[in-house]
């Protein structure tokens, strides 16, 4: 069986000449179906860059990326939209909710683009919001929500399509320890249901929930270890 994520010799370069920055500088990473991976590393080490590549949101300067055996670079716009909408649930570091649009409408959006209509769409969005504990805030717009609440709306939006691959860029950055705990429990459940979860984090206790920890520095992977503490 081929891996869900297969990154080969990935290079991402910003700028040219003396100003060139290699956000990714030769990254190889394979993640199999059902894995729970934490990516750690200092700020600016290229974690978000790698995550955007894995989410089919950005392209590489050099190297190859296969998602479920499909080479992302070769897909056309329609195929990319399908991959992003159905396979991947992406949680951004900076939430990226649509302004002046209610929490419910934000969560419904990916379902709408999949052609899911009316009642079913609404009930699935409501269910996802309930999971993140925001059922009493469904008609609030992003500016009327706290940072942690916005983050939870973003999580609900990523979950409502039931993606097989969940990519989360510091999903607990704006959460208190209780909410963090709840969210991590949720990730555990999702992972237990056989879905692949990749989480970027700075926090050791978040990484401790993952089964595998990948550490990055200066655009390179410096260690890739199985997490012994989770082997209970």
């Amino acid at each position, binding site marked *: 069986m081929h891996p869900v994520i297969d990154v080969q010799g990935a290079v991402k370069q910003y700028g040219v000449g003396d100003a060139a920055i290699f956000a990714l500088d030769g990254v190889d990473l394979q993640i199999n179906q059902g894995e729970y991976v934490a990516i750690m590393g200092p700020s600016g080490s290229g974690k978000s860059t790698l995550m*955007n590549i894995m*989410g089919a*949101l*950005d*392209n590489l300067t050099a190297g190859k990326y296969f998602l479920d055996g499909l080479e992302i670079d070769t897909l056309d*716009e*329609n195929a990319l*939209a*399908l991959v*992003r*909408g*159905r396979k991947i649930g*992406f949680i*951004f570091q900076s939430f*990226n*909710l*649509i*302004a*002046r*649009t209610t929490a419910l*409408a934000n969560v419904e*959006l*990916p379902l*709408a*683009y*999949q*052609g899911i*209509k009316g009642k079913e769409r609404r009930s699935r969005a409501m269910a996802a919001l309930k999971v993140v504990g925001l059922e009493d805030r469904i008609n609030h717009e992003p500016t009327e929500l706290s940072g942690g609440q916005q983050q939870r709306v973003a999580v609900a*939006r990523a979950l409502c*399509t039931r993606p097989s691959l969940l990519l989360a860029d510091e999903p607990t950055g704006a959460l208190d320890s209780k909410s963090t705990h709840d969210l991590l429990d949720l990730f555990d459940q999702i992972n237990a249901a056989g879905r692949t979860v990749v989480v970027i984090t700075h926090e050791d206790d978040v990484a401790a929930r993952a089964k595998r920890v990948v550490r990055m520095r200066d655009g390179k992977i410096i260690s890739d270890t199985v997490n012994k503490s989770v082997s209970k």
Partner: protein
Amino acid sequence: MSFFEIIRFAIRGLNSNKLRTTLTTMGIAIGVSSVIILLAFGNGSSKAVQAGIEKLGTNTITIQSNRGGFGGGRASASRSASSKPLTVGDAVALSDPIKAPDIKQAAPVAGANTTCTFGTNSSTPGSFNGTWPAWFEASNTTVAKGTYFTNEDVTEGRRVAVIGNTIVTDLFTGVNPIGQVMRCGGIPFTIIGVTEKKGSNGFQDGDSLVVAPLTAVQRSLTGYNNLQSIVVQAKSAKVQDLAQTEINTIMDAQHKVKNVSNRDYRTLNQASLLATTSSSSSVLTVLLGMIAGISLLVGGIGITNIMLVTVIERTREIGIRKAIGAPKRAIMTQFLIEATILSLVGGFLGVIGGLIGSHFKIVGVQPIIIPSSVFLAFGVSVLIGLFFGGYPASRAASLRPIEALRYE
């Protein structure tokens, strides 16, 4: 995703930023209505000028001396050795019904340059005409109050006068002018009538006018040898060309003209005056059209500006939508529908505003709408709205989601 759903998205998009929506719609509406109103104003004023000239009478032909100088009295030999001034005899000859069957009547005009006073008030008439009663009909001038002077007044040389409204307001505020005596160049004239208001024909005030019997004016003000013009009235506008030929035949004989390219008189008719003014007022329309075009352009830049200012926000939004699986086509359709609704609603409001605005007189001119300007203004603004609403969206929709999210 259904088309209906995309329309709902577009409406929600417009609804979610009401200020932007309102400003853009207003920008388009103002652009459209100002173009319509400005062009209607230009059209209306040129129509008003034409109507003013038509009021002067389109079947009138004016003969003037070609001897250099206005009255022809300052004889200059430069034109022709045998040149003669216009005479009362010419006018009599032109009135001959056998030689000139298409001429209804002719009236000689002696023009005086003088100032009239009444008490301490004074007024300098734009034209002070000594003439025959026939002049009134030939020049399409009617007396509104009082009476015309008669042929007897002319033969007797009575110092009576018919005056225009401007003279009335200058000299006789609060006084009934009929029966009063004003002094023109020191000579007393008794007012017997006031002409109907003519207004301005665009060049001169038609109401700054004094008309008196030819003999009285010649005797006391101008002398006998310098008629300013002869006003001829054709029987109808249709036979104007025939009348013109008869005038030339009679005048050539009267003045012993040997070479028709070197006549000592010339003729002017209202039809040719009308042609010049209508071409000059079409210049006015073109000018206003240019102003309107500029206002459309400025309006267009305004629309573009509003659209572009929101492009950063919209580009980020497009990035988010793409990241969660929106197909490019759905995004494009949504943004094009938004731009279409904005442009159409704005254009429609602009047309309504233009139609309403054109009902009001502007500096006394009733605007008359040019139908094609409505379509032009509407079409151009809708196109501008569509282009500047659609183009940035299509550019953003082609970006990778991460590029769109970072856009600034």
